[in-house]
């Protein structure tokens, strides 16, 4: 009898301990995972930054020459490292792509949520998912064999250039903007819409005066996320943009972006040479731009919650 009692107590004790140990293992494993996340970002920021600043620290290129210089001649007898053409190229293609993609995406989101919520969503949802799944090399391949010849035949110039890059990018960022915008639209409280309809407003009046203004910060979030993707895209753009290190004067002129000059030059330059360091500085610029994009998204989200 007494024996039995102690056994039961022991049993309970061991079960509690087992729970504790399990909990402990689980917790420490999870903390390890989180720690790894932190380590990976810290090491990434550290290495890219330390390589990126060596252009200025070791090769003594001045910040002004790098960011505002327009002459890129890294292998010349008097090498110059003006990165402005690439920075400008990245911004121009990204903004153009956003300008093309945003109206399309917003219309697609409205189509899915407001106009035909039933089959509209069934039709567009898989389309959006597929578009986001197509690999960027395939976009580049199609851009080079469809968009470039088309532009060459219709517009002056060689077809290759900013316009081709922006078009390819705009298709690539469509899914990002559309899915964020559609989420925001469907999260809108129903009574807001219904009261507008009750006042006798047409659908377009409701959309343009009620729905879009209230969801604007969320839609902008989608646009910024799309721009972040466009800014960092490398291969597809490099295949169609022409890669001349100049600020383009027309849409059909060959230009470069930060990513395209990095992919072209990185393998052919030796580590620690000034040319290679300058490419790392551009990678640093790309990284800082990512921070900026995330920061803007955060600001927009804060506005949304108010």
């Amino acid at each position, binding site marked *: 009898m007494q024996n039995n009692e102690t056994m039961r107590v022991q049993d309970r004790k061991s079960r509690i301990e087992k729970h504790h140990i399990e909990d402990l293992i689980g917790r420490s494993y999870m903390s390890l995972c989180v720690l790894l996340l932190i380590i990976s970002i810290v090491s990434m920021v550290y290495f890219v930054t330390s390589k990126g600043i060596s252009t200025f620290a070791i090769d003594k290129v001045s910040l002004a020459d790098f960011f505002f210089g327009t002459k890129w001649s890294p292998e010349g007898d008097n090498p110059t490292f003006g990165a402005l053409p690439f920075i400008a190229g990245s911004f121009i293609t990204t903004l153009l792509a956003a300008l093309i993609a945003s109206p399309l995406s917003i219309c697609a989101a409205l189509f899915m949520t407001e106009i035909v919520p039933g089959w509209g969503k069934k039709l567009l949802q898989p389309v959006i998912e597929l578009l986001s799944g197509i690999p960027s090399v395939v976009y580049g391949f199609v851009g080079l064999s469809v968009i470039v010849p088309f532009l060459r035949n219709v517009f002056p110039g060689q077809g290759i250039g900013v316009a081709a890059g922006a078009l390819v990018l705009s298709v690539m960022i469509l899914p990002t903007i559309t899915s964020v915008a559609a989420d925001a639209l469907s999260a809108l409280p129903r009574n807001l819409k219904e009261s507008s309809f009750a006042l006798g407003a047409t659908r377009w009046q409701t959309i343009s005066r009620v729905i879009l203004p209230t969801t604007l910060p969320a839609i902008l979030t989608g646009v910024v996320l799309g721009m972040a993707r466009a800014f960092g895209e490398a291969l597809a753009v490099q295949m169609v943009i022409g890669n001349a290190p100049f600020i383009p004067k027309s849409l059909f002129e060959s230009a470069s972006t930060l990513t395209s000059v990095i992919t072209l030059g990185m*393998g052919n330059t030796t580590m620690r040479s000034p040319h290679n360091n300058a490419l790392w500085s551009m990678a640093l610029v790309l990284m800082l731009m990512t921070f900026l994009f995330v920061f803007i998204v955060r600001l927009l989200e804060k506005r949304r919650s108010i």
Partner: protein
Amino acid sequence: MRSKKSWIMALALTSVLALSACGNNGGNNTAGSNAPTETSGAELSGSILASGSTALQPLVEQVAEKFMEQNNGVDIQVQGGGSGTGLTQVAEKQVDIGNSDVFAEEKLKDADEDKAKALVDHQVAVVAIAAVAHPDAGVDNLTKQQLVDIFTGKVTNWKEVGGADQKIQIINRPASSGTRATFEKFALGTKTEDLKGSIQEDSSGTVKKMIGETPGAIGYLALSYLDDSVKTLNYDSVEPSVDNVVSGKYPVWAYEHMYTNGEPNEMVKAFLDYFLTDEVQNGDVTDLGYIPASKMQVSRDVAGNVTNK
């Protein structure tokens, strides 16, 4: 049951870590301690790691496969990454052989000059580069001066050099390209600056495609890429043919280099020697559109001085 699951998770994690640790060792060892385990001479075994020029990669891969068939104990890995990467890695002893389209001295400059001195050059093939144009340009010969005028932007229409009335579109290579360095050094004799509106592509395939598709285009390609889709231009009335390169009449060519850090060990040496046998030079090297280094009647040093052999 559940604790078992978490154990499996932990196990998976540790094995990943352990694997990467192994890899760490493996990577460090490849360059340093892969001396053949048997030194009898006939039986070679061990592994060789080569990296670098993507242009040279197909040739090295193909020769490596044949070498491995003949020497079962040897494993050769050939990686791309570009000439710069190959030179960096061989200089830092991460690989055994660094493949390059250019002399190491041209890439490892200034602070890295010492590193270039430690590298031993093995010239395995010669690549010749020809100026090419879109077939409708109406020109089949350009002089050196005409080429310079075109690539510096002085001449912008084909009719100024005796061709059709068609705007010239330059398809150039990026500043870091070995092909561009060779073309500028031996065809133009001067470094050029990028012109506004010029197109830059790194890869020969894309350059060829664009010259073939773009009216008025001019660019330059290695002989192995030439076909009917583009018009090959004579240079100062010399045809860019293998014979003219071998005899030294056609000047726009460069060596393909395979660098080792210091003198190669026995196994690497055997591989590099195999590269220079007639079997390879007249077989694979020629098949892939290169010119055998052993056939050259002239030789050239880093500074570009040509001497008869």
